[in-house]
């Protein structure tokens, strides 16, 4: 999620505040992981970032980084899956920020990047944060894309639902599965509550 947020903010800003020819295409592309079966997303990641994929090959040979079937790979899969959620949340937040304030900043001498950093993003901060927290909670529950791209290696790429699924495959694993499910429930609840709380605090900070 950490490395999903900056590109998500950038993409959301592009979609919310600029008009360019490829915009509908980018919009569709961003939302693809949400409608595509997660297994397909994972497989596409494997094709691109796998050790024989165009990007994975370069990463491995030049930087010695392998993503497929590693913890980093699991994170990448999560990031890809939650990207649409983050972009949507951030985009709504940016669109809700009054463009009149950006105009005012312009007449006061603030350039494009300056305005983004001092006006638009601070005003959108509550939305961005809520998006990030919800995305984090969703990450914990990621299944299909992770198992396809990073497999289910205990202690490395095994997410909660993968763990629950694998203990359920073993006879007598129901008790452990139940405990893991409770944990999953608690994490999800905590994530939602934290996002609600922080969102409200930040909203007050930006004077709403």
């Amino acid at each position, binding site marked *: 999620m950490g490395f999903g947020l900056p590109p998500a903010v950038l993409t959301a800003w592009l979609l919310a505040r600029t008009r360019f020819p490829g915009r509908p295409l980018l919009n569709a592309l961003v939302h693809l992981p949400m409608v595509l079966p997660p297994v397909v997303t994972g497989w596409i990641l494997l094709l691109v970032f796998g050790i024989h994929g165009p990007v994975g090959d370069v990463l491995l040979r030049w930087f010695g980084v392998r993503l497929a079937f590693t913890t980093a790979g699991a994170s990448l899969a999560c990031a890809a899956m939650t990207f649409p959620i983050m972009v949507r949340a951030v985009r709504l937040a940016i669109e809700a920020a*009054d463009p*009149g*304030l950006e*105009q*005012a*900043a*312009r*007449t*006061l*001498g*603030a*350039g494009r990047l*300056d305005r983004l950093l*001092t*006006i638009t993003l*601070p*005003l959108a901060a509550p939305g961005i944060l809520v998006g990030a927290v919800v995305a984090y909670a969703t990450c914990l529950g990621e299944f299909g894309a992770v198992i396809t791209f990073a497999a289910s290696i205990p202690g490395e790429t095994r997410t909660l639902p993968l763990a629950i699924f694998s203990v359920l495959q073993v006879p007598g694993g129901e008790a452990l599965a139940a405990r893991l499910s409770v944990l999953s429930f608690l994490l999800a609840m905590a994530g939602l509550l934290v996002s609600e709380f922080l969102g409200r605090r930040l909203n007050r*900070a*930006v*004077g*709403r």
Partner: protein
Amino acid sequence: MTLSFALRHRFPAISLDIAFEVPATGVTALFGPSGAGKSSVLAAAAGLFRPDECRLAIGDEIIADTRKQVWLAPERRRVGLVFQDSRLFPHMSVATNLRYGMRRAPPGDIGFDDIVDLLGIAPLLARRPHTLSGGERQRVAIGRALLAQPRLLLMDEPLASLDAARKAEILPYLARLHAGTRLPVLYVTHAFGEVAQLADTLVLLEAGRVLAAGKLEEIAARADLPTARRDDAGAVLEARVLSHDPVRRLTTLGCGGIELLVPLLATPPGGRLRVRVPAREIILARPDGIAAGAAISLHNILAGTVRALAEDAARRATMVEIAVGGTMLLARVTPDATARLGLTPGSRILALVKSMSIELVDREE
């Protein structure tokens, strides 16, 4: 130095063709009904809207000239804009708001403390915008625009969203500002009271055209313009206090070569102020109609010449433009009176003005 502005643009509903040249110091009011193009002028001057053709120059500094492909982005123009809805940044304190433009501008001669003082906003500095009243917000917005060291200040109906009490609260600050800076100001409004109080120069707009532009004194006294069709039509005169007579409780004002007696004022002799002579309060008489020293309560009997007449059919009235001394008056009388006196352009006439009907326009200088 002059400020020259020209704009040509075709909107689907209206086409604008607006050009004027006004002195580069003092306040120029852009006055007209909504849809006249006032706000387009400001948006183009600020660079937020790019018309088909536009030129803006202050003296020989060219800020925009689309024919020569000169079009500075708003952030590089150093043209300040005060919006009707103040647009303070909600996530910053008043002080941070004030400094936002200042930090991004080259150092200039408009100082932080001076502006805070001038606008009376020192007690607000630590507060957040959403805790301020409408009038306070607007004062902060004006300060913020000024501290960005603009070459030109634009004000888009800065008082329109305020109630009468708040307007009265903020107008003295604007008048002080007007007296304290040499910055050219374009002030959009559809409230004639603000024009009378603040403007030096008036540009009258209607349906995307300039009807008239010139000194406020000259435009306000014209019989043929829409300003003469207003209830509060009348001449606006720049006056100087000549002398006080505490016994008679009268003050003599000198305005462009004529003298007016008004109820005793507090302004010391030599002080400048602005008075309004409402058109409906003026009585006209033939030169021989009133004997000097007649037993009449009236103080101000001014000999003048009729310059122009215009019908105001809706009011069953005639507007009479009169040259007196070096200035002008505007009178509203019935068409019957005009006929009985046989008024035509060039007629010699006496304008009778009650001392009590002369209105003082609040202005600190």
